[in-house]
C-alpha cells in the first residue's frame, strides 16, 4: 500500500459552526509532516474524518488511496493516536493491546514487542487507569504501532510527556519517517515540532493556510526583509525604493527593506555610493512564522508548492 494520506475539500459543520472548511492536503511517505494550528483549527476533526469516525459533509479522505472504512485490517495500514480516546481504566495495558491485536488477527507476541518499543514493558500488567498522561500516550503509541503500519497519524502525541518523553517521541517520529512511513503529527505548539517535522501543514479555521517545507516557511516568513543602518537614510530609501523594495524607516538612521535580498541591497547601495554601516538579513523563527500565519489565518502557499 502506498504510504499516503490524501485529504481533499473536507467540509463539516457542528451545528452552525464550520469545523472544516475545505481542508485539503497530502501527506507523503518518508518524512514527518507537522499538522499545526491553533486549537479549534480542525486538526482533530480532520484526523477523525480520515479514520471514518466522523462523517464529513463534503470532500474525501483517503489512506493509501482507499477510504479507511474499506480496509479489512485497518491497523495494519494506519496507526493512530487520537485525542479523547482513552483505553478503559480497568483493563491492563497488555490486555488493551491484546484485544486490539485480536481484532486484527495479529499474534499476541506483537503486543509484547510494541510494549517494549513504547517503554511500557515494566507496567504491562498494570491497569491503564493508574497511568500518568505520559504513560497513556506511550500506550497509545504502542497501539498505533501494533500493526507496523506504513501510515501513522498522531494527534498531540507530546501532550503530557516529560522532557525525556519528548526527546524519545522526537527520535521515534524521525526514525519512523526514516523507515519510509508517512507520519502526520498534530500539535498546537509549533516548538514541539521544531527539528522533527520536515514538512508542515498549517491549519486555521478549518482549512489549510500553509502547506510547505519548514525551510521555505521560515524563508517566506522572513519575507526577504533587510535591516539597514545608514547615515544617509533618505538616499538609501530612494535607491532601494527605485529598485522595487518596500522601504520603511524604523529609526533616525535605520530602515528596513522588503523584497530584496541582502546581497542585492549591498550591490545597489554601493553602486549609488550611498554609505551604510550595517546590513543584516532578518531571519524569522519557526514560531514567528507560525504566529504570522495563524494570526489572521490568511490563505498562504509556500514557494515549494
Amino acid at each position, binding site marked *: 500500500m502506498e504510504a499516503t494520506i490524501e485529504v481533499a475539500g473536507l467540509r463539516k459543520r457542528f451545528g452552525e459552526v464550520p469545523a472544516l472548511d475545505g481542508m485539503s492536503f497530502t501527506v507523503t511517505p518518508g518524512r514527518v509532516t507537522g499538522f499545526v494550528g491553533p486549537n479549534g483549527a480542525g486538526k482533530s476533526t480532520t484526523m*477523525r474524518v480520515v*479514520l471514518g469516525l*466522523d462523517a464529513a459533509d463534503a470532500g474525501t479522505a483517503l489512506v493509501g488511496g482507499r477510504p479507511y472504512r474499506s480496509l479489512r485490517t485497518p*491497523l495494519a495500514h494506519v496507526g493512530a493516536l*487520537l485525542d*479523547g480516546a482513552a*483505553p478503559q481504566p480497568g*483493563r491492563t495495558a497488555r490486555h488493551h493491546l491484546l484485544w486490539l491485536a485480536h481484532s*486484527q*488477527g495479529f499474534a499476541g507476541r506483537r503486543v509484547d514487542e510494541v510494549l517494549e518499543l513504547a517503554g511500557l514493558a515494566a507496567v504491562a500488567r498494570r491497569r491503564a487507569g493508574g497511568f500518568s498522561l505520559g504513560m497513556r500516550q506511550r500506550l497509545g503509541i504502542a497501539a498505533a504501532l501494533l500493526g507496523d503500519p506504513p501510515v501513522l497519524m498522531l494527534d498531540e502525541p507530546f501532550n503530557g510527556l516529560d522532557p525525556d518523553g519528548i526527546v524519545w517521541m522526537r527520535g521515534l517520529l524521525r526514525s519512523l519517517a526514516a523507515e519510509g512511513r508517512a507520519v502526520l503529527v498534530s500539535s498546537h505548539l509549533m516548538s514541539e515540532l521544531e527539528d522533527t517535522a520536515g514538512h508542515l501543514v498549517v491549519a486555521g479555521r478549518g482549512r489549510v493556510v500553509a502547506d510547505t517545507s519548514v525551510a521555505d516557511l521560515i524563508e517566506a516568513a522572513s519575507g526577504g526583509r533587510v535591516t539597514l543602518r545608514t547615515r544617509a537614510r533618505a538616499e538609501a530609501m530612494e535607491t532601494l525604493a527605485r529598485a522595487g523594495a518596500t522601504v520603511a524607516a524604523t529609526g533616525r538612521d535605520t530602515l528596513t527593506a522588503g523584497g530584496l535580498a541582502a546581497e542585492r541591497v549591498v550591490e545597489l547601495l554601493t553602486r549609488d555610493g550611498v554609505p551604510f554601516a550595517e546590513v543584516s538579513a532578518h531571519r524569522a523563527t519557526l514560531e514567528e512564522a507560525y504566529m504570522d500565519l495563524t494570526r489572521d489565518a490568511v490563505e498562504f502557499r509556500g514557494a515549494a508548492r
Partner: protein
Amino acid sequence: MSGFRRLVRAEWTKFRTVRGWVLGLVAAVALTAGLGLQAAAGSHASCGMGAVEVACPAPPVGPGGEAVTDRFFFVHQRLDGDGAITARVASMTGRIRKPDERPGVTNLVPGVVPWAKAGVMVKDGTRQGAAYAAVMVTGGHGVRMQHGFTEDRAGTAASAPVWLRLVRSGDELTGFESPDGRTWAEVGTATLAGLPESVRIGLFVTSPGDLTFSQDVLGGTVAVQRFTEATAAFEQVGVRGAATGGAWSHDDVGVTVGPGGAPHHPGRHVRQGDTFTVTGTGDIAPAGDEGGMRAEQTLTGLLAGLVVVVVVAAGFAAAEYRGGLIRITLAAAPGRGRVLAAKAIVVGTVTFAAGLAAAAVTVPLGVRVLEANGNRVLPVSLLTGARVVVGSAALLALAAVLALALGALLRRGVLAVAVAVAVIVLPYFLATVSVLPLEAARWLLRLTPAAGFAVQQTVMEYPQVAGHYAPVLGYYPLPPWGGLAVLAAYAALALGLAVAALRRRDA
C-alpha cells in the same frame, strides 16, 4: 466472516479482561443458585394427622407422569375384556357452599358448577391416578369424553337428562350419547395403551370447587374456591361383558380422612333396582398449581441474577463511551453494525453460559432440597425441565442483549440499567405480586419484555379445568417460547436502534 470472527474474539478479550464484569457473571450465578437454594432450604412442609405430624403423601400421578387430582364417587363392578355400560343420567343437582352469613353456620345453596361431572367410566382399578376413560354430562359444558386426566373432547351441549354409553374394545374406548336411548352419536374415542384385561366399569359423580374472584384492597385479584357436591340420578343402568353382572362395589376415590378416621366431605350412593343416585365431590383433572410447588419456584434468585447481568451488559456497552474507547474500537473495526453484533454475541453467549450453569444446578438441586423438606413438587417431564433450564439461560442472555443495546443507545450505563430494569424486572414484579387486576397483569406479560419469563412455566392451562390461571401462580398468558420470542423481539429492536444510532452518530 473471518473478519467478524476476529471481532467477536476481540470483544471477548475485552470482556474477560475487565475483572468487574467477570466477577459480575460469577455473582449472577451465585445469586441465582444461592438465593434459590436458600429459599428451598427454608421451605418445609409436613401434614398434620391430629397431633401427629407426618410426611405429606405424594400427590397422585397420572399415566403421563403429571400430578393429577383424582377424587370422585365411583359405583363400579368388574369387567374382563370387551364390554359396555349404558345409563340414562336423569337429573343432576348439587349444592354449593357460599360465604357463611351467620358465623358457624355452613351456608349451602342449591346449584351445580359448570364443570361438575356425572357419567360412566372404565378405569384401571380404583387407585388414584390410574388410567381411565369416561363419557359424562357436565353442569354447564354439555357432554364430554375425557381420558388420561388431560384429554377432553366435547360432545353436544346437552344437559341431563341424557343417555350415555361407553364401549370397551381391547384398549380402545368409545363414548356415545343419545337423547332418547335409541339414536346414538359418537362423542369420542380414547386409546388407553396397556389397559389390563380386567378393569372396573361403572358410574361416577364428581364436582370441583366453586371458583370466585374478587378484588383485594391492593388491587390484586383474589380467587376463592368453595366446596361443592353434585348428585346425579342414573336410570336403566346396563352393563354387559365378561365377569359383569356381579355385585356393585363403591369407592369414594381419593377421599381425605380426618384425624378421627372420618372421611372429609364423603360421597355416597343409593341404589333402587337399576336406578342409582350418586353424590360426589372433587375432580378428575390435572392438578395444576394446587398439586404442589412448581419446579421453577427454585429459580426465584434468577431475578437477582438477571439484574446483575443487566448491569454487566449495560456497562459493557457504556464503557465504550466513558473515555472515548469507542474511537479506538471503531478505528480498529470500522464496520459499526458488526461491532455491536460482535458485542451482542459475546454478552449473549457468556450470560447464556452463566444462566445455564446457574439453572442447571439450581433447579434439580432445589427440587431435591424441597422434597427432602417434605414439600410436594409437581413432577415435570425431562423435556419440560430442560426447557425451563435452557429457557432461563436464554432469558438471561436476551435480557443482557437488551441491556447492551440500551447501553449503546443511551451511552450511559446507569441510565441503561434503569431502563432495562424498568422494562424487564418491574413489569414481571408487578404482574406476579398480586397488586394488579388479573387481566392487567396478563397484559403486562404479553406486551413488555417481561413476557420472556413465560419460558419458566411448568404448569399447564386446561380449558376443561376452571382454575385461577394467574401469573402469580405460574401461569403466563403466552406460551413458553412465544413469551421468550417477545423478549427476543425487544432485544432485536433495541439492537437495531442502537446500530442505527451508532451509524448515524460521529464517534
